[in-house]
């Protein structure tokens, strides 16, 4: 029983991390139907921002995390304004190619600026080790991830469902043309959403690298799983992305423990199965989209 609970805990914390990294992509894909693969580059940027802030500016971990968010949000805003904005009307494949090109460039740039090896992250002592809750030994860092991710999920959900801004975003996801016809500044809304999503990507990336450090190949490592989380959840929905991220996280961790012979294949089988069953994702809506 202890093992089951611990496995669930580990799976959920892994899933929450995936959620923070992927939610930005889900919203932008849902809103503007824009496939931005460079999203994972923003995750990497957040990681490097954390390392640089801690090593060079000497900032403590908790202070460096918001910096990772801000750096990525700024980079996202710049990227959107200079390059991506011109391709909203382009075909999906064009967007895929464009953003893959950006990913390649980011990987190379990271190797050039920070070198090809892993840059370690010094996680503070109070976040290392365990917290004993009865028979369960819960890793402190995972608890932290859960806390931060959980709070963010709630905040995002509230933001989407209960604020005017969120209502405007949801209108754009449902039907951009009509929303624009109603007088919403879709372009401006999207730029803001893109920046926030990018910032979240950076924050997620910064939190994910504590285990390994960050290296230039980070984007390639996470590209596929982020794509899977976004497509399985249904684009443009916070709840959907959260559900699919948790499902993937738990399935991955649990299957590796209980069904080791299947290896990492469970996630792929899950993807195939879910897509065949619910092509629009768990919570996706078939939108009458422009």
């Amino acid at each position, binding site marked *: 029983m202890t093992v089951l609970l611990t496995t669930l805990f580990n799976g959920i914390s892994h899933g929450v991390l995936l959620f923070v990294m992927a939610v930005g992509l889900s919203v932008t894909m849902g809103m503007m139907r824009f496939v931005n693969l460079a999203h994972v580059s923003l995750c990497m940027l957040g990681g490097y921002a954390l390392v640089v802030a801690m090593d060079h500016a000497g900032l403590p971990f908790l202070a460096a995390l918001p910096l990772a968010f801000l750096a990525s949000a700024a980079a996202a805003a710049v990227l959107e304004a200079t390059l991506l904005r011109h391709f909203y009307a382009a075909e999906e494949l064009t967007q895929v190619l464009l953003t893959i090109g950006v990913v390649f460039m980011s990987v190379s740039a990271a190797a050039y600026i920070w070198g*090809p090896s892993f840059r370690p992250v010094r996680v503070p002592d109070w976040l290392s080790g365990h917290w004993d809750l009865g028979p369960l030994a819960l890793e402190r860092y995972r608890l932290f991830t859960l806390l931060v991710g959980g709070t963010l999920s709630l905040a995002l959900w509230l933001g989407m469902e209960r604020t005017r801004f969120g209502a405007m975003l949801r209108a754009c996801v449902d039907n951009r043309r009509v929303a624009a016809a109603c007088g919403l500044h879709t372009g401006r809304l999207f730029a803001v959403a893109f920046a926030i999503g990018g910032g979240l990507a950076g924050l997620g990336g910064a939190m994910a690298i504590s*285990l390994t*450090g960050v290296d230039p190949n980070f984007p390639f*490592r996470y590209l596929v799983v982020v794509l899977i989380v976004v497509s399985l959840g249904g684009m443009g929905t916070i709840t959907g992305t959260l559900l699919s991220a948790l499902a993937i996280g738990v399935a991955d961790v649990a299957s*590796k423990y209980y069904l080791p012979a299947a290896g990492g294949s469970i996630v792929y089988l899950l993807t195939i199965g879910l897509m065949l069953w619910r092509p629009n994702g768990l919570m996706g809506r078939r939108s009458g989209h422009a």
Partner: protein
Amino acid sequence: MKKSIAALAAALLGTLTTHAPAQVKPDETVKIGVLVSYSGIGMLGGIQTDNVIKQFQARFGAAPGGKKIEFVRRDTTGPNPEVARRMAQELITREKVQIIIGPDFTPNVLTLAPMMTEAKVPAIVMGAATQGIVGEKSPYYLRTFFSIPQQVRPLAAWAKKNGLNKTVVVVADYGPGHDAEATFTKTYGDAGGTVLASIRVPMRNLDFSSTMQRIRDAKADAAFVFMPLGEVALQFMKAYAASGLKSTGLKLIATADIADESTLEAAGDSALDVITTGVYAPTHDSAVNKAFVAEHEKMFGRTPRVSLITVAVWDAMQIIYSGLEAQKGARFDPDKFIAHARGRAFESPRGPVSIDAVNGDLIQNVYLRRTEKRDGVMQNIEFDVLKDVPTR
């Protein structure tokens, strides 16, 4: 527009045709191909290869045996047999190299074996560790790296001898991992130890918590770990420490990959007190090594750190220079080169080594090391040695 199309066409044509074959005058120029990864996961290897070649030539000059040598570099881009094959074809048929340093990665080594044999080009493998892939596949292959059983067998024996009677085996789920698992299980079992469980870890793994849980479940004295060099080794070490397994008294024993200098810094304290078997540590106490490391750090700084690959390339250069010196005044003969190398013993920064006369592999000392922090830097400190361990 027409001019630019013409220019582009000219450039394309240039790539698609050969350059005029280089004038290879006997006794004058020997072309040496460098076939390693300059991009992708192995790119650190490429950087270090270039550095070491520079360092070697700074000390020993650029004309062994009166022959001028010229290096031609090509990128294998990682374990990419298709690319490696094409690059090798270019090196051999177009650039007409006579010796090759490389290739790296086992798939590349295997795919190029027939080509080396047919072209009679000695190739010195400095970055692939599967057993039986050098002399067994081509008489023109030599190796200055190590072979996995070379490191696993001594570790299994040492474990049993030192009171670790029950071990859980944890390997990466791919060919070399399965080999390591099989070798360890056999040697350890023969010595009287018990393997409680065998865990295979998926290669593309983002979360290691389930592996750690299964290790915990096994309730063993020790965990034998085999992970490929680089990011997987690092992730494993970090996850191991984070899971708290370190504090349960479980002894972590592994092959050197997990504590390789390229990821040791990033692993930090999580990699303390790990016992590994390896063939080289920069802290090796010999005059040759001390000079080697000092010179390297003076020329290239402290990053990237001196590690096994640097020494492997250095030794490859030693073999080349020694072979060329032996052919002073004569045209380069690949068969004589191989015959000269086979069975030869020499001093490497890692210790005394010799090339196996039968399969061209490297017979070397295998050291037992413990990871410690010296002067704030993570190091592998040798505390025991098994001499002249064969690869077969």
